[in-house]
């Protein structure tokens, strides 16, 4: 892993978040949430900075980051694709849909395409079981998705059509 230097404004952002929680070690998870929502992910250098600000060991920060599936150390794609793998979606064929996304994008779960456009992740029940199987692209929810629809969904984002790119 090569070391990158954090930009000044990133450092300030992270420091501000830590300060918001009084630089308390017990607030680590809130700090990580705050940071990830601002930066999109939690690279090593940011974790080191957080450890320093909260006066705790970076190993512990990393231990927490890797424990919770919500936190990620890789930047997500511009259009993060999340496939619900809750039980309701599973029994209605979410697995096949996931396979199809993986196949079409030639991408593993948790990874981002080389052009940074798409990333695939699985998430637990989004509570839209009535629409199972459910796929989310960014904030947009697609319900009752069949493997056949996968190509169409991807193509909506392929040309960067602005109406969908929110």
């Amino acid at each position, binding site marked *: 892993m090569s070391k990158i230097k954090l930009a000044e404004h990133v450092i300030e952002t992270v420091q501000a978040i830590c300060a918001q929680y009084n630089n308390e070690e017990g607030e680590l998870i809130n700090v990580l949430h705050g940071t990830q929502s601002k930066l999109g992910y939690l690279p090593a250098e940011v974790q080191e900075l957080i450890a320093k600000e909260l006066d705790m060991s970076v190993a512990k920060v990393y231990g927490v980051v890797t424990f919770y599936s919500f936190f990620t150390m890789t930047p997500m794609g511009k259009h993060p694709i999340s496939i619900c793998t809750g039980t309701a979606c599973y029994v209605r064929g979410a697995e096949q849909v996931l396979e199809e996304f993986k196949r079409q994008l030639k991408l593993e779960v948790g990874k981002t395409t080389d052009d940074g456009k798409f990333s695939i992740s699985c*998430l637990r*029940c989004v*509570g839209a079981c009535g629409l199972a199987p459910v796929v989310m692209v960014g904030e947009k929810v697609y319900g009752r998705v069949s493997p056949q629809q996968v190509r169409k969904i991807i193509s909506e984002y392929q040309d960067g059509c602005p109406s969908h790119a929110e």
Partner: protein
Amino acid sequence: MADYKMHMLVCGGTGCRASESKKIRQNLDASIQANGLEDSVQVVETGCFGFCEKGPVVKILPDNTFYVQVRPEDADQIVAEHIVKGRQVKHLLYEDPTKQEVIADSKDMGFYKKQVRIALRNCGFIDPENIDEYISRDGYAALATCLGDMTPEQVIDTMKESGLRGRGGGGFPTGLKWQFTRNSVSEQKYVVCNADEGDPGAFMDRSILEGDPHSVLEAMAICGYAIGADTGLIYIRAEYPLAIDRLKVAIKQAREIGLLGNDIMGTGFNFDVELRYGAGAFVCGEETALIHSMEGLRGEPTFKPPFPAVEGYLKKPTNVNNVETLANVPVIINKGAEWFASIGTDKSKGTKVFALAGKINNVGLIEVPMGTTLREVIFDIGGGIKDGKKFKAVQTGGPSGGCLTEEHLDTPIDFDNLLSVGSMMGSGGMIVMDEDDCMVSVAKFYLEFTLDESCGKCTPCRIGNKRLYEILDKITQGKGTKEDLDRLRMLGNVIKDTSLCGLGQTSPNPILSTLDNFYDEYLAHVEDGRCPAGQCKALLQYKIIDDKCTGCTLCFRQCPVAAISGERKSPHFIDQSLCIKCGVCYEKCKFDAIEIV
């Protein structure tokens, strides 16, 4: 404005539609026109009534007459008798199977009494972002009663008498839990609301927080008063942004009018609520793990005792209750312990919310009194199985629960009954499966989930579940043996017996229950190399039916691995050793000459 005097509601749910509700509607329309009634009677197709066992269903307004098992040819008679002459068509009325009496008015039908909304009382009724609407429905009256007229002991006694048990899965008596925390001597105590709902396929807590956040805040304040705490914390999944927003609004509103904060309603009682966020770890539903997570640590459970009631958040006495449990509290105070205890079964009082999902018509959130049978939930309320398929199993309790079968359908649902048949209440996910679902695959699905969510702290859960999963995977690949089935059972029992927390102690349940209830299906996998539900891809074989094959060569040309051979105009052949089971041949064949065995 047309002035319809009567409406005829025809069920348009998939169950009824399968049994010709469309045709019934057409016939009703025709008959009404024939009688010249089109200006005063309107025929409307509705969503599923949830009474599919007796479908198709026709309901007549305004008198609420409910006709069941209507056939298209009954349309004329209904119009002629009921509409024109005002007489009910007796043979189409519903007969109560227990009382053997005919019931005409749907309001009198047991079916409509099956759902009772206590925890969900305000969901879908009030604007969750408007505290006034909550107050107008007796909101915060329970808190006022507690603070004004009751001692903390009386509050706890009321909870005990009500018989309310924890809705998060364990079913521990809520009053007793409060008592324990009250008994711990400490300057500082905490009330924690566990909103880290994580069962895949359960979303009742989210719905309550989104639909009625104040009921949870009020209950937490009541609990705070009862146990002697001034701080409440809601540990909520970060994946629930809407619920978080609604809670924030609710907390702000409650603070603004002094229902949270210092000196609530002039009684000197202080209580405020903060939010804490989960970050995607199912194990944090376990209360010690949840507390560690709130402290900024890895959400690993620790051995109990000490219980949180003695040593919890920041080592202070902490009472942890789940969302649905709390949502029941204000009602119990308002309507009394006796009223609450009158609902439900001997040892499980009140109602339970279920998230009904899977291969069922009425996917949704339901709330039924304890003691309602699985059959009533699945067939009456849930509207039966989708697409007219056959019911195979129902999974309750999520990854901790088990798969129950046809023979368990008449089991009244409560904490103890579900346990005794090898499943559990869990948080209330209820997934219905039909004949297309392979139970080995279902067990594997749950194990995969547990594997993903195991914290890794204890050996049986960390490695044991991995081995269980590997054995199941082997079986679905057709490489399992009968010894593997014994191994599954043996290892599953040890994992239950030795795991550190509830996650591991219940993780083998989906396997053990399917082994108990669907042993033949497992046997078919390991002995015959066959998946009866046709779901295990590795066990499928695509075969060409010689009689139907015309030798068109389409499949031959489409096969990506050249596994198909044969001469033009004569039956083709699939070489099983080469076939990758992609299914292209099956899809492309125009003569249905390819079968899956």
